[in-house]
């Protein structure tokens, strides 16, 4: 599935939910399916800055695709990063670097896009894209 397709699917899934409770219960549930980062990569260097909770992110190349793994000690954060990984993982570095992540607003998580100190969603996206750029460069 392309990055666009995945985003569309996610938006459809969230359309089933009436209120914030159902949406957040689903996000918390999604966190359980996050491909977990290996313990050895749970280091300070791999922490995403700008999150109130601790979020670790790791990326590696498999064939010509970037594969992300992550973890967080907060459940909502874990769910959100699970969504990001679902959208961006297993794609070419180039596609990741250029991706526009419009689904976040569409599923009612717009406040998580606010550049406050307390949520690191913007930092997570930035870090994932930087991996895209870095891994793209390392291909040449």
């Amino acid at each position, binding site marked *: 599935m392309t990055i666009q397709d995945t985003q569309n699917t996610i938006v459809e899934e969230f359309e089933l939910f009436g209120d*914030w*409770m159902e949406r*957040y*219960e689903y996000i*918390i549930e999604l966190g359980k399916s996050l491909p977990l980062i290996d313990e050895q990569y749970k280091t300070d260097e791999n922490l995403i800055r700008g*999150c*109130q*909770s*601790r979020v670790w992110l790791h990326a590696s190349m498999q064939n010509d695709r970037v594969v992300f793994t992550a973890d967080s*000690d*907060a*459940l*909502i*954060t874990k769910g959100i990063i699970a969504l990001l990984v679902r959208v961006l993982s297993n794609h070419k570095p180039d596609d990741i670097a250029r991706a526009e992540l419009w689904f976040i607003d569409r599923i009612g998580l717009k406040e998580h896009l606010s550049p406050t*100190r*307390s949520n690191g969603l913007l930092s997570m996206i930035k870090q994932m894209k930087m991996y895209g750029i870095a891994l793209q460069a390392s291909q040449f």
Partner: protein
Amino acid sequence: MAEVMDTDHRLSRNAEDLNRIRNMFPILSGTMNGKPLVFLDSAASSQKPFQVIEAMSHYYRFQHANIHRGIYQLSQQATEAFEQVRKKTAAWLNAGHAHEIIFTRGTTESINLVASSFGRKYFKTGDEILVSTLEHHSNIVPWQLIAEQTGAKLRVIPMLDNGEVDLDAYPRMLTGKVKMLALVHISNALGIIHPVKEMIAMAHSAGIPALIDGAQAAPHLQPDVRDLDADFYALSAHKMYGPTGVGVLYGKSHLLEAMPPYQGGGEMISQVSFEQTTFNELPFKFEAGTPDIAGVIGLGAAIDFLLEVGYENIAAHESDLLQYTTGQLLELDEVNIYGTSLQKASVISFDAKGTHPYDVGALLDKQGIAVRTGHHCTQPLMQHLGIPGTVRASFGIYNNREDADRMLEALKLALKMLR
């Protein structure tokens, strides 16, 4: 703090008054995420009563002109209004002189002013600045900056498990090397009230001056700088029902006189030439540039508000709310409260086992409850406690038991979703 009184009796007598006060805050009839707003983050910034908003609006509509400069009536009246607030602030704080009141941008700037100006003149290599474990970053970092420049260093007064300062360890730290005691009056993270008067007296016996961070104190108790014998006292208008962007530094005359200027520019000068410039007298020496005049007017209205409501009433009401909410919280499963001292004001920091404060705060937000989560600008304290942060509910004069009940209901639901 308050005398022992029958709680229900006191409450029903005041319920009308409390409602009247609450209605003075237009924002509280609003919603958040589609639910009626329950604002429990006054420690971050308080809401503003009509009279403060109107005073500032009125100033801009009818009174504004630059101050201390013009010869025309409008300017003179604006100057008069501004200087009246200075006198009012001095009276409110029981300062000896109005010129001991410096208007700044807030507590943070006030502390930076002292750290920079006093520190640059008096701190030498090997000197020490004492701070408590509970300090807000604004009463740590300015001292770190000047320490780096001067070769001085910070030393931390230990904290007991209940959040109180270790009064056994403290006296032993008051050596000849210490050049400043920088101490918070009421902790924003835990609500702990430090025995400031006692600690200042002990510091003075050792010849050490004291700067008190009164940001959280001013909305809950009336600071009496001469009773405390504080050498410097810093506070922010926006924590005490006033506007953002303005604060106060109180300093004893002889100390402020001896300190070099902090910021240069207009207003703080006497004579300027390219060869040499002389400086203005107090308080203007430390008020460079055009101040936040409307903000100062707003501060004046906030002081009026506090004195009209009455600090005894504030203390009684908030003490009741604190006790009530603490009791309810402790009935929940595995909820841990930080700062269990009885000397506490208006703040409850807690976490719930098996949950992250961020998750709890996010789910409370969805239910219209505004609390603060995270390290509350007290990272060293959180490191000491070994936790990433807490959920913090803080009370103002406009909060009531219904607010507390709604937060608790919302919290129960959040915990159910997270556990």
